[in-house]
């Protein structure tokens, strides 16, 4: 009986974990590909750099979630690129995403040599997070620092 209980508990645990989205662990070349990849038509890519430990990042997350919810991914796609350490993926990042029911695509950037790529993402980036990059129709705009819902909306309007 004990075993069955134990087993069903494990089963439930696995099952509920499966409901939350998977978080892909990426390296810089994959991020670069995501940034550079040409999208069909006028699709808007919104790439937000964040971490679970970053208070202003966490504060602005709901605006990005709302933005994604308001658009089909064929028109606009939000990518939340986490700077959490990869060692924290299972015990911190995944539970965070599950608890907040985050629907936007989350990827964890597993890199340490930051100086090697920050300028490539955008020369205006000092490296502070949060930071947001919006790309569409060959146009791009980079913003460092927390965005209010109104500021994010205004930023997106520039790409429509």
């Amino acid at each position, binding site marked *: 009986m004990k075993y069955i209980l134990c087993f069903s508990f494990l089963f439930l645990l696995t099952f509920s974990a499966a409901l939350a989205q998977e978080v892909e662990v990426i390296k810089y070349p994959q991020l670069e590909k995501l940034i550079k990849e040409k999208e069909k038509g006028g699709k808007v890519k919104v790439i937000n750099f964040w*971490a679970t*430990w*970053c*208070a*202003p990042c966490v504060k602005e997350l709901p605006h990005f979630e709302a933005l994604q919810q308001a658009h089909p991914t064929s028109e606009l796609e939000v990518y939340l690129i986490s*700077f959490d*350490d990869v060692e924290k993926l299972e015990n911190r990042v995944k539970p965070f995403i599950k608890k907040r029911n985050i629907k936007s695509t989350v990827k964890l950037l597993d890199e*340490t*040599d*930051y*100086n*090697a790529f*920050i*300028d490539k993402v955008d020369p205006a*980036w*000092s*490296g*502070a*997070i*949060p930071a947001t990059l919006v790309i569409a129709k060959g146009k791009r705009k980079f913003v*460092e*620092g*927390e965005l209010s819902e109104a500021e994010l909306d205004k930023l997106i309007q520039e790409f429509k």
Partner: protein
Amino acid sequence: MKTMRMFLMALMAVVLFSAANGPGEGYKVGDYATDFSLRNIDGKKVSLAQYKDAKGFIVVFTCNHCPYAKMYEDRIIELHKTYADKGYPVIAINPNDGDKQPEDSFENMQKRAKEKGFPFPYLHDASQEITTAYGASRTPHVYLLNKDKKGYKVEYIGAIDNNHKDADKADQKYVEDALGQLLAGKKPKTTSTKAIGCTIKWKEA
């Protein structure tokens, strides 16, 4: 004439006002950095001019709350231990507003400095004017200054090394390398680097 003077005053006010508000451009390598008089955790004011024998300074904008700042605390202590005797002490400055980020309040700075046994001053830039003047935009953010006849010349701006997780795995130790080169009478080879860090918590405007 009077209108001209008023116009000039208004223009100056605009310039001053915009300079005092939030992150601006700040210093570039080669600029001369301003001295300051900021409150240390012991309540006393600290300025660069007090260090008569220093050849320069490792000015680090850092704080209590930021995980990156925490990961670098021991390395900042080591930098001070190695380079203070050679003429380059660490001066740590917390740029964050304590109301915006309570973990970085003056009292919490005192607590953290005690816990870690900081051997260097840990100053609070309560008005955030020095942070603005330097152009620090994240924590931790290092400004390596070299004293010459004209003042405190900025020789390096950026990160401490290239691996936040593990000091032993960092194969580029930017600050140590720059200091080694300065001590050898040379110019640092790498003068600026970037790293991921926490934003400065600016006062509410």
